[in-house]
């Protein structure tokens, strides 16, 4: 047992830190949930990619550095500590890319991954449907066989990034007669500007179009854009959902940096004598440390091939970070007192650290990537061995 990084890790950390110090924009970029912000964030992805910092854990041939999970955690820690912009490519990098590495063809990897790494093609996820949220096996949108490919039909919703993105990926029902509902699904990718696609942006709680509805009417997808075997979409998707719930979506660096900013905010407010508030600041700091150590331990297990934070354990991770994120932001808003309710674009908002936008975003955490209720069921059934029951 050893918490120290080796000399090579420290060299890597210093290299990341120096690069960020030289390149992170001095003023925050506009919100990536706006057209101008989206464009600015694309440019930032290109800047990252030019020096191979956009996907440090990917193989070098696709623009990465072949870094270990540990190196990725170090990178993320420095990234957030430097106050670098949010990642517009997040959906593609953390959801689609792991699937392609595991189930894609060599041709798909070569065609899709480098462009994703450079921010040239931004991906939106298209999992949910109006009648199908946590229960993905119930989804209804269809893929019908046609010459050389498939025709997509139906509706997707809550599609993150879709308002401004280029392409999307999701599951479609290709065999309505399959004996079990989660069989007969196919994993497909499609362009958002294709004929037959209508994108209707949806404003989230702060009005920004962070997601969209997609209406699909005979959208042609060639065979080369099917991932894995037709009919095996559920298995293909499940092989990588642990990534979404676990480490790769929410690295501890995010929360460590936010807890540091919260502590600074608390001290700037004269470290108020309000002990209830003090305790919440302390809990946020402790929570960020717990999440960091839990994540590093998990990464360490993976590196030493002792089994990692996969499967049901990623449900623990997902609940923890999503609730920690809300607690952090709520505490910050309370510290801001009468200014806490001001949105970021309010002229007098002191929330230049992004607390208001961060708060709005944090509220979605317990909902997306599998609701926390579903995660608790998974923990109870798979980690504690309790019987399945009626939801």
């Amino acid at each position, binding site marked *: *047992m050893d*918490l120290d990084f080796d000399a090579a890790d420290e060299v890597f950390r210093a290299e990341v830190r120096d690069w960020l110090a030289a390149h992170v924009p001095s003023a925050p970029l506009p919100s990536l949930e706006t057209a101008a912000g989206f464009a600015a964030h694309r440019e930032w992805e290109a800047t990252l990619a030019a020096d191979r910092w956009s996907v440090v854990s990917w193989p070098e041939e696709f623009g990465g550095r072949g870094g270990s999970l540990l190196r990725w955690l170090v990178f993320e820690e420095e990234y957030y500590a430097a106050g670098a912009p949010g990642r517009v490519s997040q959906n593609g990098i953390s959801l689609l890319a792991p699937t392609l590495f595991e189930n894609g063809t060599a041709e798909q990897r070569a065609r899709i991954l480098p462009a994703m790494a450079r921010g040239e093609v931004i991906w939106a996820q298209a999992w949910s449907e109006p009648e199908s949220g946590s229960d993905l096996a119930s989804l209804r949108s269809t893929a019908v066989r046609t010459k050389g490919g498939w025709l997509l039909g139906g509706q997707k919703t809550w599609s993150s990034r879709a308002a401004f993105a280029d392409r999307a990926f999701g599951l479609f029902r290709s065999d309505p007669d399959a004996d079990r509902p989660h069989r007969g699904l196919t994993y497909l990718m499609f362009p958002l500007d294709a004929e037959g696609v209508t994108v209707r942006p949806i404003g989230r709680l702060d009005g920004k179009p962070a997601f969209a509805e997609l209406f699909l009417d005979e959208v042609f997808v060639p065979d080369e854009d099917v991932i894995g075997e037709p009919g095996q979409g559920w298995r293909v998707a499940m092989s990588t959902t642990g990534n979404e719930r676990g480490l790769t979506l929410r690295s501890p660096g995010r929360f460590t940096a936010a807890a540091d900013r919260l502590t600074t905010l608390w001290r700037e407010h004269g470290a108020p004598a309000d002990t209830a508030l003090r305790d919440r600041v302390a809990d946020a700091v*402790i929570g960020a440390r717990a999440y960091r150590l839990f994540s590093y331990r998990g990464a360490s297990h993976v590196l*030493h091939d002792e089994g990692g934070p996969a499967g049901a354990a990623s449900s623990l991770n997902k609940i923890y970070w999503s609730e920690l994120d809300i607690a952090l932001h709520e505490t910050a808003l309370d510290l801001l007192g009468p200014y806490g309710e001001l949105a970021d674009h309010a002229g007098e908002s002191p929330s230049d650290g992004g607390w208001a936008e961060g708060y709005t975003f944090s509220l979605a955490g317990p909902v997306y990537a599998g609701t926390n209720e579903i995660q608790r069921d998974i923990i109870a059934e798979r*980690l*504690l061995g*309790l019987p399945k029951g009626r939801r």
Partner: protein
Amino acid sequence: MRFFLDAEQREFARSLDGLLASCDTPAAIRSWADGDHGPGRSVWARLAEAGVFALAVPETYDGFGPLPLELAVAFEGLGRHAVPGPLVETVAAAALLDRLADERVAADRLPGIASGKSIASLCLTSLGPYALDADLADPVFVVEGDTLSVAAGSGPVQPSADPGRRLSRPAGGTVLARGPAVTAAAGYAADVAALATAAQALGVGRTLLARTVAYVTQRTQFGVVIGSFQAVKHRLADTLLALEFAEPLVHGAALALAAGDDGAGRDIAAAKVTAGEAAYGAARTALQLHGAVGYTDELDLSLWIRKARPLRDAWGTPAACRARVLAG
């Protein structure tokens, strides 16, 4: 970076668990509560044989410590089995004497602690007036201000919420040492005590969860086992979550202490409050999900339920720990 227990540490935990499983600790606690220390002392002797106390004592004085991480592993096991006695106080006393760097005092006291012959207790009056199990412990160390003394006796036992904990005020005594070295050594001992208590709480929480999971999978209502109800499942999932995230804090704090990090005290405080709250939460859940039978002292479960709250508050209340985390 390799941050998980190695094979040897896991084997130590396993063998300690096996040893304690064969000890009938519930019976030992019930005797202990009645003032019959016999069964508890024999558990103590077996723990000493397994090397538990030697982990806190340096090699010069017949130990093989100090090994904070192994101590944390051991104390999690002691908590799992709700072993009675001034376990934390004994290892904290060893830490204090070790840190005091007074060769005569150390040579006089530490070998007895390592071998298990000496059951020690420790009272830091800045944290509270009571010493645990002072009626049987020998010696009982008291630090008041910058003065370390050995108590001559103890006042009457004040009943604790936990029958396995016997509290009394140490009385009289002989001064052993005085000055800033005592203050510094007492601060270090308080850190070791907080770490051991956090680990012990974690073990208590693990047993409360395991016993409750076992209960809800056999208790039926409305024709089904209550463990199939979502409200029950979610409460247990949250209990596991709290314990799982407390554990790396405890282990990380032990490593920080072993390395002599400047922030070790802060890390220990973070571990203490988190493990203490997790165990207390597990106790509340265990009581609720066991229903009325959980509210009796007939079920052995009560021995763990009643431990959780005192461990949460001993050697650093949650408020004190949180303040320390922010003290920088």
